Structure formats: C-alpha cells, structure tokens
C-alpha cells in the first residue's frame, strides 16, 4: 500500500527589503526545490494576512518590519483570525540582520533563525530540520494523532515575553508635540527645563523658548525619566540638573533658582526633602 504523493510544502516569506526578499526566495528555490512560495510580503500586516489565507507549512520572517514585526507575526501565526488556536500553525524561521535580544532568546530553542546575509550551508541545515518536522507532522496526521505543535509552549511564551516587555515598558518620552503659532513643533525632552501645569495644559519651558502641550502632568510624570526630573510642587516639575540653588522666599518656602531661566519656582513641603542638605 503506497501513500498518496504528499502535496508540496508551502511557505510565506516576509522581508521589507525587496532585494532580500528576492534573495531569500532564490536561496530557498535552490535549497528546497519542491517548496512552493505562496506569499512574499513586505510588512508584518500583509504577512499575517497571507499566513491566515494560505495556511502555509512554513513562514520565514524578518524580525524588523514596518507595521507589526516578525515576533508579532509569529505569535499571530499560531491562531486564526478569530483568535482560535490553529491545529497546524506554520513552522517559524526568523531571518534577521541583527537582533541581539531576539536571537539570545532563541539561542537554545528548537526555533530556527537565519542571519543575513544568508549562508547556504546554514540555510540547508535549517531546511533539513524543517523537512524532518514536516515529515513528523505528516506521520502524526496519518496515524490520527495530534500534530506536534509548530512552536512549543516555551518558545511561544518567550515570544510573548519579548513582546510584552516591549509593550509594557511605557515608551520613554523623547519628543513633545507642541502647537506653536501655525506649526506643530517637536521639542526634544532633553531640552526641557521646566514643566508647569496651567489649567488643562502644560507649560513647557526650554532654555530659550516655551510652548504649551496638552498632557496631564500625571501622565507626563509616568513617562519622564525619574532621575532626570524632579517634581517640586503639585504643578511643577524641573530638570534636576537645571537647579542652580535654592533660597528661602518671604513666606519661608524654599524657592528653586534655575541655571538657564530667570523664573523661580516654589518647592512645596512634600517635596522639600529633595533639597535637604544631608
């Protein structure tokens, strides 16, 4: 009794640089002639769409891509559009120029990754492993057993971990978008000397300019580097390095003098400890 000829394996590839996409397709054609490339995508979103549409056996994913990146695509490839887990998600191979963090994470796992420029020998080894795993799958299917998962639980977890770490760290604020006359100006956080709450706006003072932004002070505080800025009053945050000295105001309150601005700012009692001599 002979098994029916297996359908040719199918793959989706994704890389935002056309040269590299073509190079990968070409290299695969040589290393794995029967592999059929059913989708060649330039960004993460179209890669996810192609994977859901084509249900390929393998996906070769660049990590850094416009839109959703390779890690997100890998995580998404394990489930259908409605979120239900797939029986036989594609086997994933990351193809990357250099992603130290991601590569470290997968160093000791079964997940394959390839570095660019592609080396023929490495690609051939990866193809050999992929073929073996596809054969295992086919055998399991023929025996009526559940297919071994494409990405084992540990790897999926690791990808989720990498993604979560990236999402959870509130993006450090580097730029403020401020309306200034008829244009929108971007002010680098590094230039800000003082933030001062004014109604629902924040007054942003730089060395030689000022602007208003619409952001609650509370949100701002969560995203400012804490070691660079000090809150000295309910409505005032100053750059620590800009504090030249303090003095006592007439009311007996501490007053902060800045290096690059003439204004003085009062320190309210709960924040006075920042300036205590000891």
């Amino acid at each position, binding site marked *: 009794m002979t098994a029916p000829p297996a359908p040719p394996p199918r793959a989706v590839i994704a890389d935002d640089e056309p040269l590299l996409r073509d*190079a990968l397709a070409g290299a695969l054609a040589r290393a794995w002639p029967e592999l059929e490339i059913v989708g060649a995508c330039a*960004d993460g979103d179209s890669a996810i769409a192609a994977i859901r549409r084509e249900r390929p056996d393998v996906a070769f994913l660049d990590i850094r891509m416009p839109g959703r990146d390779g890690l997100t695509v890998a995580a998404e490839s394990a489930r259908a559009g409605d979120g239900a887990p797939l029986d036989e998600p594609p086997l994933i191979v990351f193809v990357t*120029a250099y992603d130290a963090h991601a590569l470290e994470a997968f160093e000791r796992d079964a997940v394959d990754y390839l570095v660019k420029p592609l080396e023929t020998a490495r690609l051939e080894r990866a193809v050999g492993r992929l073929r073996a795993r596809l054969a295992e799958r086919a055998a399991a299917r023929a025996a009526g057993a559940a297919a071994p998962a494409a990405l084992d639980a540990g790897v999926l977890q690791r990808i989720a971990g990498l993604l979560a770490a*990236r999402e959870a760290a509130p*993006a450090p604020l580097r730029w403020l978008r401020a309306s200034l006359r008829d244009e929108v100006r971007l002010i680098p956080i590094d230039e800000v000397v003082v933030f001062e709450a004014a109604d629902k706006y924040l007054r942003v003072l730089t*060395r030689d300019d000022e602007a208003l932004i619409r952001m609650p002070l509370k949100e701002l505080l969560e995203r400012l580097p804490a070691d660079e800025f000090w809150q000295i009053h309910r409505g005032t945050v100053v750059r620590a390095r800009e504090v*030249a*000295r303090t003095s006592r105001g007439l009311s007996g309150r501490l007053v902060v003098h800045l290096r690059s601005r003439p204004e003085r700012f009062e320190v309210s009692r709960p924040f006075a400890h920042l300036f205590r*001599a000891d």
Partner: protein
Amino acid sequence: MSTPMPAPNATSTVPSDTPTNAPPDAPPTASPDATSTVRRAALIVLATLALNTLIAAMLVAVGISTAFGPAFVQSQAIGLPIAAACWSVAPWVARAEGDVRVAVPLFGAAIVAGVLVGLALAGWASGVFFPGAPAPGVDPGRVTVRTAILSIACGVLVTLAFYGRERLRHARLRADAEGWRAVAAERSAAQAQLQALRAQVEPHFLFNTLAGVSALIERDPPAARAMLDEFARHLRATLRHARAETTTLGEELDVTASLLGVMQRRLGERLQWRFDVPEPLRALRLPPMLVQPLVENAVKHGIEPLAVGGAIEVRARREADGRLSVEVADTGRGLAEDTAPRDPGGGTGLANLAQRLRAIYGPDARLALRENRPRGTVARLVLPIPDPAR
C-alpha cells in the same frame, strides 16, 4: 584715660548664597534650610564679637587704650552696628556679583552709617558701664574724632578682607565652572564622533547592506558592484569626515548622498530623495556630520517604518538674517510624541546633535523639528555661518 575704641566690624560680606556656578553635571546644590541659616547667623554674630574683642585687646596692647574693659565695650558698641550695616547691604553687592563699583559705595556708606550709630551707642554704653570715663583732661571732641577714624579704618580693613576673600572664592568657582564647560564641550565633540562612527557600523545597517550586495551579486553583478562602491565610499567618507574639524556643505551632502544611494538600493521604490541646494552654498564651511545624521534619522524613523515608504528632501537656504538654514524634510511616519524607537539606542542622535551645536555655536545655532504636512517630519538646522562673499 581710655581711648575709645573703635571697632570694626565686619561680616562676611558677599553672602555665600550667591550663584554657585556648579558645573552642569554636578548635583544641584543643596541649600541651607532653616536651621543652618540660624546656625550661620549665630556664627557671624560670634565672629563679629570675637573680632571686636580682638581689636579691643590690640588697642590696649599698642597703648591706644589703657584699660581693656572700656575698650571692649566701645569696640562692641561700634563694631556691631558696622557689622549689621554691612550685612544688610551685602545682598545688593551679591546681586551685582561683587562688582566693585557697587561694593565700594554700598560698603562705604554702610561703614560710615555704622560708625555714626556706633559712636552714639558707644558714648551711651561707656556712660552706663564706666561712668568715670573718659578720663578728665581729655577733650571729648578729639576723642570722638579719633575713635571715628579708627573705627572707619578697622571697618574698612575687615570688610575688605571679607570682601576680597569672597571675590577670590567666586573667581575660583567661576574658573572651575569654565574649565568644566570646556571639558564638557570637548567631551561632547568626541562623543559625536564616536556616535557617528557607531551609527555607520550600526549592525542592522551593516548586515542588511551586505545582504543586499550579496543578493545582487548573482542577479545583477554591475548593480552589486555599484552598491558596494557606494557603501565603501560612504564608510570611508564617514571615517575621514568624523575626524575632520570642518568640511564644506557640498562634501557633507556628497557623503549624505552615498548613504541615500545605499538605502535607495535597499528600499527600492519606498525611498525617493532629492537635494535642493543652491550651488554657491555648497562651498560654505561647517563642522562635519551635521546634515547626515538628520537624513539618517529621516530614513530610520520616517521612511523605514512605513510600508509605503516616502520621500526625503534636503534644502539649504540663506536666511534673511544671514544665517544658513538646512532642512531635511521627509514624508514618513512622523515623530509622534509617543512613538519610541524600538531599539533603546535610537532617538538620541538628534539630542546629541543639538548638544554638539550648543557646544560649537552657543545659542546662535538652532535645531528644531516640526511636523510635515500631510505627514512626516521636518528637521531644521539654522547655523550662524556668514556669507564669505559679503
């Protein structure tokens, strides 16, 4: 016969809470809080009392005064008002940063006023404590004049001593701060060089470019060769460039063009670019690596993250005020406030550039970003580079 004792006074003149000029990286100076202010005031009063006592003792020692008791009382009676007067004008002197033209009249007036009050006080105190003095036979008028002169002399000497000490301290602080600033400027220039080099050999840029060349080698050998040439030219120019003191705008643009050439081959239709720079401006001299980082930034944060890509235009103009402006405009993703680059090293490039501009040009140079319409970012550099033809 007790010659009245003058007395001096003195206070630490220039109050020490004048600006400290600490180097920009130093932690902010913790300022005295209430208890230390009290402690300071107490110290000053004690020092003044001690000084007055010392003067009284000296007057006795040199024979101007005959008895220590009356000399002590008069010394204190005159010295304390001078100290108080000088202390109360000290903040104005401090505000003028110790300027002699302010210090001399203010302290002079304070000393004279202090002496006048002091003499009155001394006359009264002597009457109270030593009803017998001054000794008979001494002309009270002459005694008062001599006391006044001695008091003023002591007051001036002590004030001068304190004032001089404070000036010296401030001069030293200022020198420290300046030296520190020079070091900081040097350091930031060195950092910029390093940054530029590191940006060029940024692993992603390097390996993706190599992968691109490798991809072209078989399919289109002449194109592969051209790309490799461009990449090599770019690397070489960057290495040479980062070390040079100055370059011309034209050279800077050529280096930038080789970067864009490499990126163009990699990104294909996703990247369009053009330079709009009047020929005469290309000869202007400027520090290297001011324009290229802006273009790099536009590619990395504007064009690459967008699947459809975008266009980059570099424009240079002579502004009405005579300064040179260079704009790098892209139609890419735009630097929304909440878009942080994925890699932690990103985004600091512009901050470094701004820091470098400050070190080189001070406040005359400007780096500003604004949003491009309908999408993207415009980075605008304004440099105080005069027109050599004029």
